[in-house]
């Protein structure tokens, strides 16, 4: 990464509609690839002429292709969301810290995702599935507002059917035809009967969801240093220069987004920090 502030052109080669407001864009480099991303890291995606936002990686191809899942919530994300195959967008990165799923090798890996929080965790799940024998139990608990709001809807069913992953998808509001669990992610999490001595947990979603989930894990004696969360702040430069993403002593673009609960817990307990 020689010019971290200079976007590199990537062409949209795939656009998968995930939900009514989220798509997954497949991107391939136009001229040159960025360095390889790792699970949990993010890119600054630049909709030319509109602006730039941080988006975590939701898939990493060996050939340099990238997957980013974008939810349309503002001007830039809307422009990215509407980018069609053939369009070129700017990409900077990789930035930030990684989930480092390899640290969970030999342990039970518990992944808890809320809403679009499943996107940054997808590479972790794929990595764990690729080396399934390296882990003991692998569990995914994902929550969404309604059944139609789950990202990558087909994949968890395939993972569950393979027997390699224990999958619980739970919704706040069931719709006709939904016969799965109804409730908050903390409920199936509390039901897991974890072995705290060998549990590593990754949490991603709205901050309150991560706080509540971490409390369940801590109550079950999972050490804070083995609970990792992904922080979200207003990241602009991605290289710890501008200070927009300051969270207490952290600059989230550099020191995060993935941090252990040892670090995040006290910070997330401070309102408006």
């Amino acid at each position: 990464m020689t010019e971290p502030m200079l976007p590199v052109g990537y062409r949209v080669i795939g656009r998968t509609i995930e939900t009514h407001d989220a798509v997954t864009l497949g991107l391939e480099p136009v001229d040159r690839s960025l360095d390889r991303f790792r699970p949990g890291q993010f890119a600054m995606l630049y909709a030319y002429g509109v602006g730039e936002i941080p988006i975590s990686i939701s898939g990493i191809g060996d050939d340099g292709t990238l997957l980013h899942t974008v939810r349309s919530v503002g001007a830039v994300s809307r422009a990215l969301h509407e980018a069609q195959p053939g369009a070129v967008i700017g990409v900077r990165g990789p930035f930030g810290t990684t989930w480092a799923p390899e640290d969970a090798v030999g342990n039970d890996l518990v992944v808890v995702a809320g809403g679009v929080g499943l996107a940054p965790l997808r590479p972790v799940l794929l990595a764990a599935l690729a080396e399934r024998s390296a882990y003991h139990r692998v569990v995914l608990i994902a929550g969404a507002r309604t059944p139609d709001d789950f990202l990558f809807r087909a994949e968890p069913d395939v993972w569950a059917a393979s027997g390699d992953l224990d999958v619980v998808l739970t919704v706040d509001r069931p719709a006709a035809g939904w016969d799965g669990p109804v409730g908050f992610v903390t409920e199936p999490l509390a039901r897991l009967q974890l072995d705290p001595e060998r549990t590593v947990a990754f949490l991603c979603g709205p901050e309150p969801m991560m706080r509540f989930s971490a409390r369940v894990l801590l109550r079950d004696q999972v050490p804070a240093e083995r609970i990792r969360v992904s922080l979200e702040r207003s990241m602009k430069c991605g290289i710890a220069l501008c200070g927009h993403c300051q969270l207490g002593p952290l600059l989230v673009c550099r020191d995060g987004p993935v941090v252990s609960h040892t670090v995040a817990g006290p910070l997330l307990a401070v309102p408006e920090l």
Partner: protein
Amino acid sequence: MSSAGLYDGLSAHEREALLRTSHEEFYDDGERLFDEGGYAGFCWLIRHGRVALDSTVPGRGQVVVQTLGPGDLLGWSWLIPPYRWHFGARAVGTVEATVFDGEQLKALADQDPRLGYVLTRHLLGVVLDRLQSTRARLLDLYSHD
């Protein structure tokens, strides 16, 4: 709240007394355990399967408000007057459960206040977890994440 939690803090003798108020039941998929407004005389410790709590909403049928799974306690309306179910409950898939008789539980607690205290604390923990979970859902977190 696991079954281990239910029995935590109880002596072997107390645990046996508790189990004497119970029996095992099995439910087929779709079978109703109880209906909203009915007399609440029992509570269930779900051992296998899932139970959907529902409420009848005009025009929408029986809307599921929450599902409970293995290790969960189902039903506490037997403890507090007027002893009527506030929601209905339906088996999702095959369900195996230990069913406790509410009248016998109350009598047991009256005879042995220490046991009653331990049981009540456990039930309060279950209620608190459910309340917090419901509050978290009220925040509608995923709509703005």
